[in-house]
């Protein structure tokens, strides 16, 4: 267990970025994710791997630094929390429009406005329905453990470069601040400049050498060309849905009732499932690991099996809309969730399931 460590989610993410062979990190401190840049600064990755770490003057500058490094084929990451992500959205839209690979991390806190520094999942819409301006989507990974905070960094880079698109890791204050046992990957060597030029020379702006010039832009003033560009993006998103959907089913085989939850809520809901089963309620959990793409088909199928679905999130009801869209009114769907930085307990979730979904009490007599 040489590389088995007890780390905060934020620290594990930072360490994983170094080990994934990231070339650069640009960020700006904000609670509850400041440990990411603090950890990176303390680790001196410039010495360890040559990775550049820079504290930018704002989230806006940070995301545009990401844009700059990404435009040259470098593996680059930034992280922030909700208000900071709002500031980054212009840059994120540009990254999507210019088709640049990058990893963005949101350790969500409660909003709107300055809100609270406590955990929340109120940025679901912002994350999966675009957020910034224009017709684009982000590939969104939702870690539910410190281990996944670490593992998803390399996964996110892989997806980002596979599709030349920005990838969002949607965490929250709970997963970011908590410590768990984490097994870290071995160090992946950073790509050399020569390899980057070789591998991404068809698009990256690394200097016009032995080829035509490369241009990175999201601008097309001719509507026909811009339409084609947008359509090409949509093709990419379709491919993501076909090839890179991720989800986890927990005790769904015999489930009569279903909870859908991601990230921290999925962890809490898992305990609610356990408590429910102890009471004789056959309840299962579907955990979307990617929020876009979303496990629509899986939910559609599960709706034939279960009598009702409870969507659980730390907000006033956002993902529940996707659950409803997926199940086509086959079964009742309800939302439950605390918000504003309050966290629901497993007991509260179970109670909500019983009150909102298992109304007739039929299964209690099983």
């Amino acid at each position, binding site marked *: *267990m040489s590389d088995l460590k*007890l780390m905060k989610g934020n620290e594990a993410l930072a360490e994983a970025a170094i080990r994934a062979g990231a070339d650069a990190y640009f960020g700006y401190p904000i609670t509850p994710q400041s440990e990411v840049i603090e950890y990176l600064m303390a680790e001196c990755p410039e010495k360890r791997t040559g990775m550049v770490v820079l504290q930018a003057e704002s989230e806006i500058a940070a995301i545009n630094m990401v844009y700059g490094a990404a435009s040259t084929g470098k593996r680059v990451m930034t992280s922030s929390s909700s208000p900071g992500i709002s500031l980054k959205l212009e840059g994120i839209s540009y990254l999507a429009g210019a088709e640049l690979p990058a990893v963005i991390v949101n350790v969500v806190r409660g909003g709107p406005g300055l809100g609270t*520094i406590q955990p929340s999942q109120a940025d679901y819409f912002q994350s999966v329905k675009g957020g910034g301006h224009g017709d684009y989507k982000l590939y969104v990974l939702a870690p539910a453990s410190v281990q996944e905070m670490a593992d998803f960094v390399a996964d996110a880079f892989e997806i980002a470069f596979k599709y030349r698109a920005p990838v969002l890791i949607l965490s929250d204050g709970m997963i970011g601040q*908590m410590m*768990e*046992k984490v097994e870290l990957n071995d160090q992946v060597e950073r790509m050399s400049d020569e390899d980057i030029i070789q591998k991404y020379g068809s698009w990256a702006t690394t200097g016009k050498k032995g080829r035509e010039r490369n241009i990175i832009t999201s601008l097309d003033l001719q509507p026909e060309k811009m339409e084609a560009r947008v359509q090409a993006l949509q093709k990419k998103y379709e491919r993501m849905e076909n090839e890179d959907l991720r989800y986890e089913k927990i005790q769904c085989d015999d489930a009569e009732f279903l909870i859908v939850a991601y990230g921290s809520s999925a962890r*809490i809901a898992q*305990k609610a499932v356990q408590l429910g089963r102890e009471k004789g309620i056959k309840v299962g959990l579907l955990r979307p690991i990617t929020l876009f793409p979303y496990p629509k088909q899986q939910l559609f199928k599960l709706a034939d099996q279960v009598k009702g679905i409870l969507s659980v999130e730390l907000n006033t009801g956002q993902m529940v809309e996707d659950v409803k869209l997926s199940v086509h009114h086959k079964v009742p769907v309800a939302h439950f969730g605390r918000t504003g930085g309050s*966290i629901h307990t497993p007991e*509260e979730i179970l109670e909500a399931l019983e009150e909102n979904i298992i109304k007739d009490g039929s299964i209690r007599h099983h």
Partner: protein
Amino acid sequence: MTEEIIIAGFGGQGVLSMGKILAYSGVIQDKEVSWMPSYGPEMRGGTANVTVILSDERISSPYLKLYDTAIILNQQSMDKFEKTVKKGGVLIYDPNGITQHPTRQDIKIYQVEGYRLASELGNKKVFNMIVLGGFLKIKPIVHLESVIEALKKSLPERHHNLIPLNKEAITIGMQNLFSHKLEHQSAVNHS
């Protein structure tokens, strides 16, 4: 085995680090662990608490409503967490500064005078290790050697000279855990 613990007190009492040492000891013994703190400005001067879970199985929720054990180090935390101990569970507290002592009949209540003992030892910083010793006396879920190993791993090297002192503090805590309910408080004799 699954042990769900809340440790709560003032910021600066070493609440979070006590939880960290406990969690790290669990990692050393190859257990599943989670450490979920309250965070933010409330840590500075206000109350701080951390939920620590050690288990032989994958941990589901790191955030809980009820706990097997509550370690309580100030009155505010007593007000908030006495009621969150599961029936038959354990409440350990330092009576220093406590005006409303716990009253529940359906849980086991213990005192460890961490503050007084740390003062006597001449180093108030090991207060949290004395309390941890008290906890380990009643709930020996990790070995003392694992705790020492955890201290080595989580303390910066320049503070490794303090490990013997921390070990002594844990031992003192183990020897000075008293059952709250007994009229004549006596050291708990636990195998």
